[in-house]
């Protein structure tokens, strides 16, 4: 909400406290000031390196150069029809000022004004906003000749002084404005733009903020004096109220004022309303808005005579009731609204009058011809108002407040305050009494507060007297008997519960009133909980580290995708569907982590080398229940195997074996040894001859391989093959790892190469298994270092060359090695028909 400081000062003495101090105190107490807009008051100046605390905008008015002046005569301009010359007195001397203001044009050539007009006068050298510029542009008044007449000063519009954007006419100050007084002293202001949190709705008004400031500064809250005289017949003689549903409408109050004169409100009032973001309409509507901003109770003014006529000149009966499905009402904004049973209407015996708590209807609204006003102040169910305002897309100052909860006690105060302002600004006489239907009175919340509880929750030592003092500032009723403090919530608050919750509600107020900054900082003295750790999380973090160590970039992708996007690489079943997606391409929860990482790889296709992974959940639907969220690892590699440089030409592209090598390292890092790579039947579109399933301890845990050429075509990848992998982390994590190491021998190893020629159909893993089996524990490493095919070897044959490492707990001789080698060769010859290549 936007709050002019001048208004605040009606209710609390803020002398000696700067605008920034006020903003800081409020911000720390939970009423965050987003911006300070200066409209006349002096702005703080910051030196270089000095701290700005708040976003600050607006303009300060020069005290010497911008003053209250009076126009004594409006004269014709000798050379311009649309301009006038003003005879003006600024408190020191008479001036002639040029203006084109339309709102005094009608006085042109009428001679000396019977009553001078008070205006805001900017002298030569004053800095104001340029009224003709787009937006806010500062300009300094300089002497110039306009159509042959000297111009050096100006009577100002609201835009020129930074009050509103209005530049249609000049400001017409109230008659009592003291001529010659600095304008800043007269109406200089600053506006705090305050964010109101849901639990702070009670403070969305001037009194609320003043009350908070009173608590924060220890100064007195000057409550409004609601006093007026009444005359004529009592309102009860002419109006009655019937509430059909007290849950929806706990209270309805109405007052009557007769003989009002509709005209603009005093300028001071208009200005405050405008600074608070409210349009000034006329004195009656302004009175309802002014009382609302001041007290927090939205009011609604009916044209009493319209109601009277509708009632056939009989006693008016107002009825509040839920609307019928499909019922219609034309609201003040001219819209015909189709209503549902959720909406509440204020009606008379003829038909509906207004949409309760949200917006009035056109027929009974206050017009230029209104003479008598019936003023409504009510309490409505906040959930209902919230839904109604949302349903009809009618956010208003009234619905903002009602939808956050307004205490029924305010209905009466609000109506009285509104009547008081109407009487002051529109004359008229207030009818005695109020009609007040109050079928559902809220219970006053009463809470017991002890020093012990304050200590237990807040960690501060306070006596009950100190607690009472802190709460009294916020108008809690505090009674101390035998060191027991009983607290009753004030009549403007609906957010204080009872019991253990009420205690927390009250202790929050104790803490805020005491000041969060004064509460000490301590360390937890309570016992540490049992240490359990989080093995799943820790294992996944280890997995991430391993992946990073083998050169993989981690990515994190959206959980929401579309079946079409995933369909490029996997055939999918039922999805977990989002009921309110932001876009069709984010309409389901992903079923494939690999599809998500592939999309990222595709987006990065210009990169020289891509090796990326993601660890995350996919979502499997369970009908009308929470989905399963299994964890997956997906890897995508494509592009150059290593980085190029100015003297290193492009490396070959990643292929199947690059992925396999990394998977081997990964699984070794996870301490898995019993690993088998088998032909895969994956649900993913993989190349049938270049993909494999990974089995550990006999269990399938993942697949990897080259993307199927047809699947790859659906992406915008380059020529390089795209190698992918996906693992089921639940399965991978729950296998039995094997710990332990191969001891490092002090004896020197022997190395020997053997090459064999064998049938193409025999796999490398079969050969290696045979070598290891035959070689026994002396052969500690078997490394394939060459695969060779050529005509000399023969069609359907290949040559595999191995580097063998012999190692024993003694120094091995050539003879020792020869024995083992011969055994191996013989075994290979006999078992798989291999021939030693010489």
């Amino acid at each position: 909400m936007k709050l002019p400081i001048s208004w605040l000062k009606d209710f609390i003495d803020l002398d000696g406290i700067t605008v920034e101090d006020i903003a800081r105190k409020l911000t720390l107490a939970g009423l965050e000031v987003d911006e300070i807009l200066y409209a006349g008051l002096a702005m703080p100046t910051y030196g270089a390196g000095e701290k700005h605390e708040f976003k600050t905008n607006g303009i300060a008015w020069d005290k010497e150069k911008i003053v209250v002046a009076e126009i004594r005569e409006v004269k014709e301009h000798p050379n311009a029809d649309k301009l006038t010359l003003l005879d003006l007195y600024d408190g020191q001397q008479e001036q002639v000022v040029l203006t084109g203001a339309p709102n005094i044009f009608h006085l042109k050539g009428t001679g000396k004004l019977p009553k001078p007009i008070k205006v805001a006068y900017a002298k030569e050298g004053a800095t104001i906003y340029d009224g003709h510029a787009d937006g806010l542009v500062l300009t300094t008044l300089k002497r110039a000749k306009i159509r042959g007449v000297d111009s050096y000063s100006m009577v100002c519009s609201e835009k020129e002084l930074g009050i509103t954007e209005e530049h249609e006419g000049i400001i017409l100050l109230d008659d009592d404005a003291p001529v010659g007084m600095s304008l800043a002293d007269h109406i200089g202001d600053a506006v705090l733009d305050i964010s109101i949190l849901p639990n702070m709705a009670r403070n969305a008004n001037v009194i609320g903020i003043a009350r908070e400031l009173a608590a924060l500064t220890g100064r007195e809250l000057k409550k409004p004096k609601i006093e007026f005289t009444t005359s004529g017949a009592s309102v009860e003689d002419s109006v009655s109220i019937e509430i059909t549903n007290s849950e929806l409408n706990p209270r309805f109050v109405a007052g009557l004022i007769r003989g009002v004169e509709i005209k603009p409100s005093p300028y001071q009032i208009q200005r405050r309303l405008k600074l608070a973001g409210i349009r000034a309409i006329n004195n009656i509507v302004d009175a309802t808005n002014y009382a609302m901003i001041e007290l927090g109770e939205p009011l609604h003014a009916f044209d009493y005579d319209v109601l009277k006529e509708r009632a056939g000149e009989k006693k008016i009966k107002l009825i509040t009731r839920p609307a019928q499905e499909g019922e219609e009402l034309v609201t003040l904004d001219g819209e015909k609204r189709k209503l549902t049973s959720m909406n509440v209407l204020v009606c008379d015996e003829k038909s509906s009058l207004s949409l309760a708590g949200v917006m009035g209807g056109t027929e009974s609204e206050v017009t230029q011809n209104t003479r008598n006003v019936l003023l409504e102040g009510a309490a409505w169910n906040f959930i209902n108002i919230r839904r109604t305002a949302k349903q009809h897309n009618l956010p208003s100052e009234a619905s903002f407040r009602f939808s956050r909860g307004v205490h029924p006690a305010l209905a009466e105060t609000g109506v009285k305050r509104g009547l008081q302002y109407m009487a002051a600004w529109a004359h008229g006489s207030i009818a005695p009494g109020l009609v007040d239907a109050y079928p559902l009175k809220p219970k006053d919340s009463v809470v017991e507060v002890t020093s012990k509880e304050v200590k237990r929750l807040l960690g501060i030592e306070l006596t009950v007297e100190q607690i009472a003092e802190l709460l009294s500032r916020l108008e809690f009723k505090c009674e101390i008997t035998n060191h027991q403090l009983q607290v009753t919530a004030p009549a403007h608050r609906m957010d204080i519960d009872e019991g253990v919750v009420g205690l927390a509600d009250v202790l929050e107020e104790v803490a805020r009133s005491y000041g969060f900054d004064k509460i000490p900082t301590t360390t937890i003295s309570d016992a540490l909980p049992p240490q359990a750790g989080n093995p799943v999380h820790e294992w996944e973090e280890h997995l991430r580290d391993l992946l990073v160590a083998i050169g993989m970039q981690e990515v994190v992708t959206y959980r929401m995708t579309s079946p079409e996007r995933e369909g490029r690489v996997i055939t999918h079943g039922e999805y977990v569907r989002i009921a309110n997606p932001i876009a069709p391409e984010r309409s389901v929860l992903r079923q494939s982590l690999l599809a998500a990482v592939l999309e990222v790889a595709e987006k990065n296709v210009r990169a020289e080398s891509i090796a990326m992974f993601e660890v995350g959940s996919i979502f499997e639907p369970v009908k009308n229940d929470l989905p399963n969220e299994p964890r997956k690892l997906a890897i995508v590699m494509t592009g150059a195997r290593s980085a190029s440089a100015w003297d290193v030409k492009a490396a070959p592209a990643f292929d199947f074996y690059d992925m396999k090598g990394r998977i081997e390292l990964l699984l070794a890092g996870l301490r898995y040894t019993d690993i088998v790579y088998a032909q895969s039947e994956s649900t993913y579109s993989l190349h049938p001859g270049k993909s494999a399933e990974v089995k550990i301890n006999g269990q399938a845990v993942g697949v990897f391989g080259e993307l199927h050429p047809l699947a790859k075509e659906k992406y915008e990848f380059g020529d390089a093959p795209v190698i992918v992998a996906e693992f089921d982390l639940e399965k991978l994590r729950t296998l039995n790892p094997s710990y332990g190491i191969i001891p490092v021998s002090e004896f020197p190893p022997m190395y020997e190469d053997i090459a064999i020629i064998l049938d193409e159909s025999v796999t490398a893993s079969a050969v290696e298994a045979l070598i290891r089996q035959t070689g026994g524990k002396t052969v500690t490493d078997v490394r394939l270092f060459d695969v060779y095919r050529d005509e000399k070897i023969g069609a359907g044959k290949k040559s595999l060359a191995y580097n063998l490492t012999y190692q024993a707990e003694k120094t091995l001789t050539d003879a020792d090695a020869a024995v083992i080698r011969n055994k191996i060769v013989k075994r290979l010859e006999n078992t798989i028909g291999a021939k030693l290549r010489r």
Partner: protein
Amino acid sequence: MLDKLNEIEKAALEDLSSITEQSALDAWRVSNVGRSSPLMQVFAGFGKLSKEEKPIVGAAANRVKVALESALEEKTQAVKNAALAKSLSEEKLDITLPGREVNIGRLHPANQQLRRVLAILAEMGFQVYTSREVETDEMNFQMLNFAPHHPAREMQDSFYVESEGREDNPILMRTHTSPGQIRAMREAVATNPQNPPPIRIALPGMCYRYEQITARSEIQFNQVEGLAVGEGITFADLKGTLTDFARRMFGKDARVRFRASYFPFTEPSAEVDVECFVCGGKGCQVCKNSGWLEILGCGMVHPNVLQNGGYDPKRYTGFAFGMGPERQLMLRNKINDIRYFWGNDLRFLEQF
């Protein structure tokens, strides 16, 4: 003989002085101190000298030998130094050519930050607790003291999951990691219903809000919450714990302030601001001239939430706090577009 020795020495040293290369030095050594050199001939003819001459000539010959050898050694070093100096002056790289790149792996920046946060919390005794991302309305809202139609729900617009017959308890994408608070409390209560153990956990994970994807708003974001529940945990403890955390996270001199705020699941609630670490509090673009950065929301666990978790609010108290790792990174690294995170452009990721 002595004259001859002097001549040998003089001639040899003269020769040596003009030598500049190793090969010439080798030749000099052969001809001057080699086996058949004039000097060695003197030694070879030693036997022919008289008894009186022997010690005199011997001493002189030895002196010459030592002199020539040391001169050779000196010269060898000089030649070597000259050669090294020459090669050093010639072998000059263009040090401005770029270094050779190495493709390395990295964690996603959001997870790097998540780890920093969790590491600090772990040292402060908060153990990681993870829970599901798709939740029920009951766990995400109702148990956390968000009444149906409560205005606070508007602060957290949600993605709902299609389901039937669940109007009272629809399924949604969690809007915060707080449902994990209820799950963790209930698990702890199950271990000892009469005397539930204290809790100190960190809850990291992805959360979802119904937003349009723009530079300032995202549909998913990481959150880390902390929860401490026990007997005798106070708001002062909350202040102390978070002040410690902020100092670990943002530097030991980091100034913090606690600002009253509102969350349905805590009371009292506060926002924690840390003095802007970009400008040191003087006011800059990052802190929007306020000198403060909002980094944490926190508060004392609401009695209803304790109750829903199975902890008696008359006996137990607790505090909770939450923060966004991506937001922290954005502030720290002046990232002005939140879409970078899940955009996963390698040119962004490789900067972390």
